[in-house]
């Protein structure tokens, strides 16, 4: 371990004026990176952050495990006769719910990160402007993938057997991660709009709880009152949960997949530009 060396300049090697001059002589500038390359570079920054602060993976490991265990054993006996029966229905849904919930950490980290001096530098670079945010979300996509793998593993241990096989499971995860990436633009918007971390957290809870619980994740909507069915059946989370459930179950729920991707596109189209507007104003 490196001891926190805040010892002053006496240990610091001198600045070499000659080599500095030699470096400065070159005035050539490489051509600007493409939008893709800049976004991937910011994605790499997100990975480096995970490498240096691995604790931030806590919310994509411990939290999902807790969710699977809790809801399987809490509702399993009552709703499906046994936890083992229930997990067959629950796992894809709880997977969707947990990963969508995890997306809200994006807002909090954008909110704290944006205040740092390094953002002034990023914003003074001649690069595709949204790449900073896209990079963020690419890093988060990795976190969502980790959370999905963790939950599937726990689910399999508890007895979940996906009929869709490897291909179905991969398709389900891919759809979920793509949706979450798009959905996260809501949080980048709030992260930039609201002044404190706490208010970001507060608003996120207000959005995420009704949205995820009022869906078909836990039970079939047919048991709900009509007005609630109207909401639940049209919720993006319901469409996504049905799509993921179908894909992992070996079906090809084309309608639900299309609905999920449609919603995902809508989120990017609406909240992407708002995020960038706020980012440019910050």
């Amino acid at each position, binding site marked *: 371990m*490196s001891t*926190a*060396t*805040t*010892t*002053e*300049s006496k240990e*610091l*090697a*001198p*600045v*070499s*004026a000659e*080599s*500095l*001059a*030699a*470096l*400065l*002589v*070159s*005035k050539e*500038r*490489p*051509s*600007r*990176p493409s939008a893709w*390359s*800049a976004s991937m*570079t910011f994605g*790499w*920054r997100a990975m*480096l*952050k995970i490498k*240096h*602060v691995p604790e931030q993976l806590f919310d994509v490991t411990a939290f999902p495990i807790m969710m699977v265990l809790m809801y399987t054993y809490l509702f399993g006996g009552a709703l499906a006769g046994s936890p083992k029966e229930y997990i067959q229905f629950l796992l894809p849904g709880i997977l969707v719910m947990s990963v969508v919930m995890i997306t809200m950490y994006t807002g909090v980290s954008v909110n704290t990160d944006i205040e*740092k*001096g*390094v953002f*002034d*530098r*990023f*914003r*003074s*670079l*001649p*690069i595709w402007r949204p790449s900073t945010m896209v990079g963020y979300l690419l890093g988060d996509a990795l976190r969502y993938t980790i959370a999905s793998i963790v939950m599937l593993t726990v689910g399999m241990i508890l007895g979940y057997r996906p009929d869709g096989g490897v291909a179905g499971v991969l398709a389900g995860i891919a759809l979920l991660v793509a949706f979450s990436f798009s959905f996260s633009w809501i949080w980048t918007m709030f992260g930039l709009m609201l002044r404190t971390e706490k208010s970001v957290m507060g608003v996120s809870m207000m959005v995420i709880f009704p949205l995820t619980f009022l869906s078909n994740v836990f039970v079939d909507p047919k048991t709900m009152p009509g007005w609630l069915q109207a909401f639940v059946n049209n919720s993006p989370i319901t469409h996504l949960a049905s799509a993921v459930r179908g894909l992992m179950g070996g079906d090809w729920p084309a309608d639900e997949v299309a609905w999920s991707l449609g919603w995902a596109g809508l989120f990017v189209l609406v909240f992407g530009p708002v995020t960038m507007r706020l980012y440019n*104003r910050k």
Partner: protein
Amino acid sequence: MSTQKSGLAIETAGLVKTFGETRAVDGVDLAVPAGTVYGVLGPNGAGKTTTVKMLATLLRPDGGEAHVFGHDVVREADEVRGRVSLTGQYASVDEDLTGTENLVLLGRLLGHHKKSARERAGQLLEAFGLSEAAAKQVKHYSGGMRRRIDIAASILNTPDLLFLDEPTTGLDPRSRNQVWDIVRAVVAQGTTVLLTTQYLDEADQLASRIAVIDRGKVIAEGTKGELKSSVGAGSVHLRLRDPGQRDLAAGLLRRALDAQVQPEPDPVALTARLATAAGDDSAAEQASRALGELARAGITVDNFSLGQPSLDEVFLALTGHDTHESSDRSDNPKDEVAA
């Protein structure tokens, strides 16, 4: 650079930025010749950083115009961004990443390929004496090291214009000198530097022209010599052996030097602000004449020092108030001098 030889690196006209009710920048006109260090001198809250942020395309001006190498900072922000680099007041690098990672990250964002980004990062770390700390997270760096990595990040591609926003605030004298050396090396290669600072001696050391800014307005502009002669030659600080002789000494100095003399809180100390000097030598000459007068009058001087005009004095001379008033803290006893 050749196209800018005769031109201006920065030109602003009536630049304004308001935050709510506050006019942080209130009609700033600047003309910064290319290839020089231009100092923007002012106390905290004077509008220096806000001005720099507008010029670096980070803030949109609410009024007026600003051009960097002929490009409008709003309409042609991308052209401007391609030619400038910014080193902020706080470290503009990612504290969670290592020195190498920071430089490679920025190198990639500037369009270098992986290999050349790594190469350039290594060379810069070497030149800045940071090779040993290359694999350490920046949050473990000392103040001086942070400044270095920050400036290194700014010159990954040699910029045409480098903004240095208070580059030595909070540094010890030695690290400060090293930063000054770096700035000199950068300018020697043809880069224009806009330096903001609270320290008169820093502007004096590095800048060829200086703008003094206060409450969002430029209150004086010129070469170092012009600015200094408008402020006076400096001040003489004296400590007498006998507090009883202070009034006598003050009277003598006032006559001999034609200077403003001011008693200090310490009963044996007083300060004489020297009048405008014709050349650099005459401050010392005036001071030695004063000492002679005091000796002839039988006043024993225990301690004597000749000070450069401080930023406080520049402000007093230019505005009639000292730097503290800018932040509405006028509880300083020195304020009385203005009366």
